[in-house]
């Protein structure tokens, strides 16, 4: 445990990276996330806010960013609203009035996405829970099961759901709904099936649902069970393979689907610089975003029952994309070749995690630390929690690439089980591990210098 004592540069790197993610937001101090339903009420009560909000909605009605930016009136409305709670508001998954909240959010943000519509920012509050918490709960549930070769984690997951009344009831509801009809093609009630699946995911706590979705498997029966968790014959597969660009565009028509999709893109975005593989270094957030897609046409699923590979994808292809094909292929890779998601699933299986630690206070002070803190762009509850990879003694490697003695060391740790999984790291990475680390350090340094010069 004392291996987890402060490792400053890495945490700073993450802080800096998170800060950069939020750097598009105006530099007002971040209020603890107001939900958009409440923010809407606040704005309605304020005369200047409500009139600007009305104006902005008219400006955005044309869904044309250019008109918005060219008209002075629209520009003014935008400027005022950027300082109102409406602009920074977020929603919570499964909250009361989630739809209403998301409608308010997209009402403001829909037309404002700069550049690529695919990479929209999630309207949901950042996930603060940790994978290790979920895992610990799940392990307590499972007691001390003997780990034999016949051990089937997915079967255990089903058991723990079955002996819990709420889990059993909602699981049975979605299974029976999705399983009726049964024949070929669209013989099942797909919409009802999706609704039942969403209810299951929203109401059942992660320590019961994640083991069903992400159970680690060593043999084919286990992996087949895992593949079947969301009754893919009904909820996932369709008689035809639709075009991905089409299903994503359809999804964006629905505020909830659009939010879940952008939540996945935001929280499962891979990063070659990050040890975890995730740009946000939060496995729980990525798994939550994956689960949030279940019950929508854009959902992902395990594509086969090979226990040794994690092949995941949506039920769509890039055929028939026309001139969009390059984009389609690029976007599709965010789902099918997602290192962050893959690592998150493996991490859930073996209980490793990206651990959040409060280490800023005990960290050796550098001139940089207070600056990053002072910028106050992070949500209150996250501003002082740093994210560190879990330390596995013996496999940790210390790097002191930078000669400057005032720079504390950067520690990179990969758990043994991750080493052994062939699919975890791409070939490119294993060839150039050290180079990557050097690049990371350069990136950290650069980022910090950049932030300093900006503030």
């Amino acid at each position, binding site marked *: 445990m004392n291996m987890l004592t402060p490792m400053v540069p890495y945490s700073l790197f993450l802080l800096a990276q998170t800060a950069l993610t939020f750097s598009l937001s105006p530099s007002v101090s971040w209020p603890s996330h107001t939900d958009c339903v409440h923010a809407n009420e606040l704005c309605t009560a304020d005369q200047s806010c409500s009139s600007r909000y009305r104006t902005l909605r008219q400006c955005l009605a044309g869904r044309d960013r250019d008109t918005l930016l060219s008209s002075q009136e629209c520009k003014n409305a935008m400027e005022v609203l950027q300082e109102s709670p409406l602009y920074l508001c977020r929603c919570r998954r499964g909250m009361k009035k989630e739809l209403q909240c998301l409608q308010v959010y997209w009402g403001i943000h829909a037309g404002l996405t700069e550049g690529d519509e695919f990479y929209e920012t999630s309207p949901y509050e950042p996930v603060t829970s940790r994978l290790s918490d979920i895992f610990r709960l799940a392990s307590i549930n499972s007691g001390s099961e003997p780990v034999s070769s016949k051990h*089937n984690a997915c*079967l255990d997951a*089903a*058991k723990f759901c*079955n*002996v819990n*009344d709420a889990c*059993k*009831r909602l*699981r*049975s*509801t979605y*299974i*029976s709904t*999705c*399983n009726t009809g049964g024949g070929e093609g669209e013989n099942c009630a797909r919409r009802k099936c999706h609704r039942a699946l969403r209810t299951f995911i929203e109401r059942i706590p992660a320590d019961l649902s994640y083991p069903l979705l992400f159970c680690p498997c060593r043999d084919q029966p286990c992996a*087949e*069970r895992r593949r*079947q968790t969301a*009754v893919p014959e009904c909820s996932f597969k369709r008689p035809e393979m639709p075009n991905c660009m089409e299903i994503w565009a359809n999804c964006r028509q629905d505020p909830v689907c659009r939010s879940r999709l952008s939540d996945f893109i935001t929280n499962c975005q891979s990063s070659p610089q990050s040890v975890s593989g995730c740009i946000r270094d939060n496995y729980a957030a990525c798994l939550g975003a994956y689960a949030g897609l279940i019950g929508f046409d854009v959902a992902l699923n395990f594509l086969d029952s090979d226990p040794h590979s994690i092949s995941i994808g949506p039920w769509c292809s890039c055929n028939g994309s026309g001139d969009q094909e390059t984009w389609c292929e690029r976007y599709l890779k965010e789902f099918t070749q997602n290192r962050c998601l893959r690592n998150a699933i493996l991490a859930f299986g073996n209980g490793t995690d990206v651990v959040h630690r409060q280490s800023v206070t005990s960290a050796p002070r550098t001139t940089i630390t207070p600056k990053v803190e002072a910028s106050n762009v992070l949500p209150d509850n996250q501003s002082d929690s740093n994210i560190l990879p879990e330390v596995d003694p013996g496999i940790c490697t210390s790097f002191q690439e930078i000669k400057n003695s005032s720079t504390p060391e950067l520690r990179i740790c990969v758990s043994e089980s991750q080493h052994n999984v062939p699919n975890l790291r791409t070939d490119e990475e294993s060839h150039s591990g050290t180079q990557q680390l050097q690049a990371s350090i350069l990136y950290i340094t650069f980022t910090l210098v950049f932030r300093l010069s900006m503030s």
Partner: protein
Amino acid sequence: ARMKRARVRKQPCTLKELEVSVSELGLGYVSDETVLFRYCSGTCEAAVRNYDLSLQSIRGKKKIKKEKVRARPCCRPTEYDDDVSFLDSKNHYHTIKEVSAKDCGCV
């Protein structure tokens, strides 16, 4: 041992539960999935009514001979648990209704 047996016999009708595999239910399904089986167990002495006493008496006087009658209340489910769904060994989903008790009573 006598004490223990006496106490067991005295236990009133209640809901009990057991973790069993789907195969063990004996319904013809083959699956290793574990389900919670709730059943009714216990005696119904407190629920004996004049009806039961009378029936016993009349039967004792051989006035009822050929019919099968039950002159004691019986501990049975008064309500069944929600459906149970599971994946069988051939990877098909099934749902079974009214397989587990939710509430018991002396009827």
